[in-house]
């Protein structure tokens, strides 16, 4: 009893432990530098392409992709919105910020797809993996996003890369979850049909499970992308440039006007990304 009492009086040094852990991690400088360089290279490639593209060509490309993605149901309204929205962003002088934000979102999306989809598949195939990964996903998604900034800075420094890392941690869960769900939802008799003809595990995955899970899986990617975009303002606090930092600065300068303008630019970008990825998802229906 007395022991228990003294326990409640003495704070357990959680914070200490975590700090020690993060410190301990920093000794693997080489490893984290490697990751930083790798992600940095992706970021730079995207940015290099966006900087190279003239504004008009960029707009034409976006319209073209939309047109192609929607090939059987034409939404001229969406294309008109894209045209006006992008021109407006250019007009407000946020063009480069927009491409930086897009770079952040695309890099994060790329990484969450590459990590999230295989992890989701693995979860669907292995009960053990599922039992381990599920609580981690819950943790990742409920922990306030700001918290990730601290170790991200400690391990990856300042700039786009830790921004990408924080976005990835925050937006990975829906991709994993939806992939897992999509694979698990493939009807049993289709699995049995695939097995009964003697498919290997890979054949079953590639020819049956993934195509059938595709819609669910893509909506996970779509959600992940939106979450990554919602991280841009937070990421700007650790030096990820783009529309987010414009908003962040506007807050600092107490400038509602430019805050909202940059905010609108984010909204425009969000709508375009959302609708286009959804279009990819929807158009091929069987």
């Amino acid at each position: 009893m007395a022991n228990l009492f003294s326990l409640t009086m003495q704070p357990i040094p959680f914070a200490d432990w975590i700090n020690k852990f993060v410190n301990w991690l920093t000794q693997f400088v080489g490893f984290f530098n490697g990751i930083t360089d790798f992600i940095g290279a992706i970021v730079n490639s995207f940015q290099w392409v966006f900087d190279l593209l003239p504004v008009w060509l960029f707009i034409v490309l976006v319209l073209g992709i939309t047109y192609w993605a929607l090939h059987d149901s034409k939404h001229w309204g969406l294309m008109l919105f894209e045209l006006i929205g992008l021109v407006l962003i250019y007009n407000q002088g946020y063009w480069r910020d927009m491409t930086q934000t897009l770079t952040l979102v695309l890099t994060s999306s790329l990484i969450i797809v590459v990590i999230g989809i295989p992890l989701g598949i693995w979860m669907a195939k292995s009960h053990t993996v599922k039992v381990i990964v599920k609580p981690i996903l819950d943790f990742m998604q409920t922990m306030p996003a700001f918290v990730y900034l601290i170790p991200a800075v400690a391990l990856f420094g300042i700039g786009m890369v830790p921004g990408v890392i924080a976005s990835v941690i925050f937006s990975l869960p829906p991709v994993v979850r939806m992939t897992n769900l999509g694979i698990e939802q493939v009807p049993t008799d289709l699995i049995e049909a695939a097995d009964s003809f003697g498919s290997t595990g890979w054949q079953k995955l590639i020819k049956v499970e993934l195509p059938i899970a595709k819609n669910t899986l893509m909506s996970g990617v779509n959600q992940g992308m939106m979450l990554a975009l919602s991280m841009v303002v937070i990421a700007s606090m650790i030096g990820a440039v783009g529309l987010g930092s414009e908003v962040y600065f506007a807050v600092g300068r107490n400038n509602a006007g430019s805050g909202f303008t940059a905010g609108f630019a984010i909204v425009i970008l969000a709508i375009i990304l959302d609708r286009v990825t959804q279009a990819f998802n929807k158009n091929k229906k069987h």
Partner: protein
Amino acid sequence: MTKKVEVKHLTKIFGRHVGRAKEMINEGKSKDEILAKTNSVVGVHDANFDVNENEIFVIMGLSGSGKSTLIRMLNRLYEPTDGEILLDGESITKFDKKELRDFRRKKMSMVFQNFALFPNRTIIENTAYGLEIQGVDKETRHQKAHECLELVGLHGYDDRYPNELSGGQQQRVGLARGLANDPEILLMDEAFSALDPLNRKEMQDELLDLQSHLKKTIIFISHDLNESLRIGDRIMIMRDGEIVQIGSPEDILQHPKNDYVEKFIEGVDRTKILTASRVMIRPDVINIEKDGPRTALRLMKDNHNSSVYVVDSEHHFKGLIDAKDVIKQIEDDKRDLQSILRTDVPTTTPDTPIKSLLNDISKTSVPFAVLDDNDRLLGIIIRSSVLGAISGNEVQNNG
């Protein structure tokens, strides 16, 4: 008849405490008790049966009786808990992963109740699936798939998607897909149950037609007794994971083993499957080559009949003579039977279904004579034995 598949002591228990459940079965505990104590479901228990080459073997039983579990153990979609399955004498149960895959690719395919077509693939791609995963090149496999689609009577749908087809058409695709890799054995789990009666009958005909020239070994699960009787060479009836009875359709109808089987065959249209040989009785006959009118008359008197059937020494059917004609011959003191022989007797063959005779039987007063291919008299069909058989009573064979 060669045995194609032999199933020995096959058992499947679902759950985590399989060992304990097995012990309880051996102690003779009931399934409910086992479920309550070990949380394990006994799907199939100690199934023993053989399936002959080229036969359609039908498995019947109420919902939950273990039909699907049993059939899924045959291609090891479910791993048996116990027991052995032999295909052509080789143990399927011992196959490793690779052998199992080859076996599924080459020897056995499955047709599903709800078709289980891949929604993302066209009809031809669905049909060619089994060949595709074996690495057969596209041209060859599509050619073969196309042939199979034609075989099941589906023309011009190759590039459509499953959801564009009706249920009947989809199941034709299911069947074509099952045939495309040229298996020796077809497993069909309630393959026609999702179809409306008209389509179902059409598919049954299709299957019988295919079977008459493809000669596969088909294991077919059905809920529908009329379907089983129509297509089955033999029928196996299951209850609570155990086999109750195995036999030809006629066996099952004529000698149901217990109340459970009786319940199953209640209300079935027996006239469809009962044949002349099943209901015929042995008649009194006289030999025209050696018997005279007096013998004939005595025979009729002894058996209280007003007529008697006439054969020759080789038992060839000659006709029938009436008592009154015989008496007249005796009064006239003639020995000749030939002159009073009636030949206007309706005849039929032993394999004729009763259904097609019913009308005539009720119209003529003279019983049908059942003759074999050489016109030998096998038996006669009298009205009361037909009605008896239809109402489910065993026919008493005289003599």
